[in-house]
Structure formats: C-alpha cells, structure tokens
C-alpha cells in the first residue's frame, strides 16, 4: 500500500472528511511531511472508490462551496488494519535488531 493511500485511509478512520479536511488531516498525521495536492487527492479517492475502500458519505454547501464527505468502508477499515499491523511488525523487527546492536550497524 502506498504511503499516500495509507495516510488517506488513516484520515478517514477518524470519521468522514471532505476533500480539504483530508488534506489537513494527512498533513497533521504525517507531521507536515506530506502535503497532498488536489489532483493527487482526487486521483487517489477515485482509485479507492473503485477498490471499494472508501465511499461518499454526504454533501454540504458551505460558503457557496460544495463539500462532499467520504468515509471508510468495512473493507477499507480491514485493509487499513492489516497494513497497520504489517508496518507495526516491520517496525518492531527493525527496532529490536537496532537495540541488539546498540543502534549501530555492524560493518
């Protein structure tokens, strides 16, 4: 799973979000490292909808602007949980080996 996909699904795991809300949330989750552009976001959302991982939730008009909210589907939540578990397992393996070597790679 690409990092962008993971971050979008993580943002939606906190509840339904509209496009700009997802961008802000992704930036916050990645501690400012990832700033999604509108084109990137909608290409990703289109692919995630086709894969059945996210779906439109509701629409609102705020300041004469359309806000369409997206939410995670059950399949999306399951895929995100699997990916989070995979990353956790990899991170655990890396940190435990670094601890064994005192944080210095053997030469």
């Amino acid at each position, binding site marked *: 799973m690409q990092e962008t996909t993971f971050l979008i699904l993580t943002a939606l795991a906190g509840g339904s979000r*509209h*496009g*700009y809300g997802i*961008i802000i949330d992704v930036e916050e989750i990645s501690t400012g490292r990832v700033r999604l*552009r*509108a*084109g*990137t*976001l*909608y*290409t990703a959302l*289109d*692919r995630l*909808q*086709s894969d059945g991982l996210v779906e439109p939730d509701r629409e609102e008009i705020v300041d004469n*602007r*359309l*806000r*369409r909210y997206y939410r995670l589907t059950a399949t999306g939540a399951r895929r995100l949980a699997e990916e989070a578990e995979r990353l956790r397992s990899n991170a655990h393996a890396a940190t435990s080996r670094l601890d064994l070597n005192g944080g210095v790679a053997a030469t």
Partner: protein
Amino acid sequence: MNGTLERRYRRLLHLYPKAFRREHEEEILAVLMASAAKAQTRPRLVETFNLLIHALLWRARHTSIPNPSRGGVMNFKWADENAAGIDKRIPAFEYRHPRLFCVLLTCTGAWFVILTAILYGYGVGGWWGAVLMPAAAVTLFFAYRLRVIAGKS
C-alpha cells in the same frame, strides 16, 4: 480577486474530461480555493503541473483505446462503467481527434525535455527534473497511444 483565481482554476480543470468535471468540479474547486493563499490570483505552478499530470492519469484510467486486434474497429468505451456520471457513449475528446492531439502531445513532451535541458544547462534545474521528466514521459506515452489510433482512423 478570488473570482479571478476561481476562473483560472476552472479553466485548468478543463484538462479533465467532462464526466469528471460534472461529478467533481465544484468539489475540487472548493479544495483548490481553500488551499490558496489570501492574495493569490494565479494557480501555483506546482498545482498546475499536479492537475495536468493527474488529469492525464484520470483519462488513462477511465478510457480504453481501440484494440487493433478487433479488425481495426474504433471501439471506444469507458474502462470503469460503474464510475458515477460517466457517459459511456462519448469517448474522451482527444480520442475523437487523435491526429491533432498526437502532434500536440508530442510537441508538449518535447518541450518538457528541452525545458529540462535548458534549466539544468543554466544550473537552475533543482528538483524540476523530477516534475518535468515524468510529465514528458506521460505526454509522450499518450502521444504514442494516439498515434496508433490515428493510424487506424
């Protein structure tokens, strides 16, 4: 001032096919306007490239080109017929004018390559190569695909 920026963004969104705009134009425009700085009147260069590349990707994802093995019959159809608001009868604009777009895309791709060479030649390329070279690759790839169609039509 915001009206000017909005009008320019709307013009940029014409890079996307009609089906996409019918479904997402207002929504994506809201995101673009919310992301813009207060005094901004022109779309940022990086935003423009991002929209250009993703519009091409969207077209590639949702449009299938004629299969030459089907006796050369022009058979346009949308790849994902379940996508909301997609008119299955109308192929993307560039597939209806393959010769014109083949030339346009080849020139655009060549210009991206030349621009990259100029920027690096003057030592001001920086990260632009990472944007311009994929853009050149995508446009030249589309030009190649359209050349196949142009040869059949």
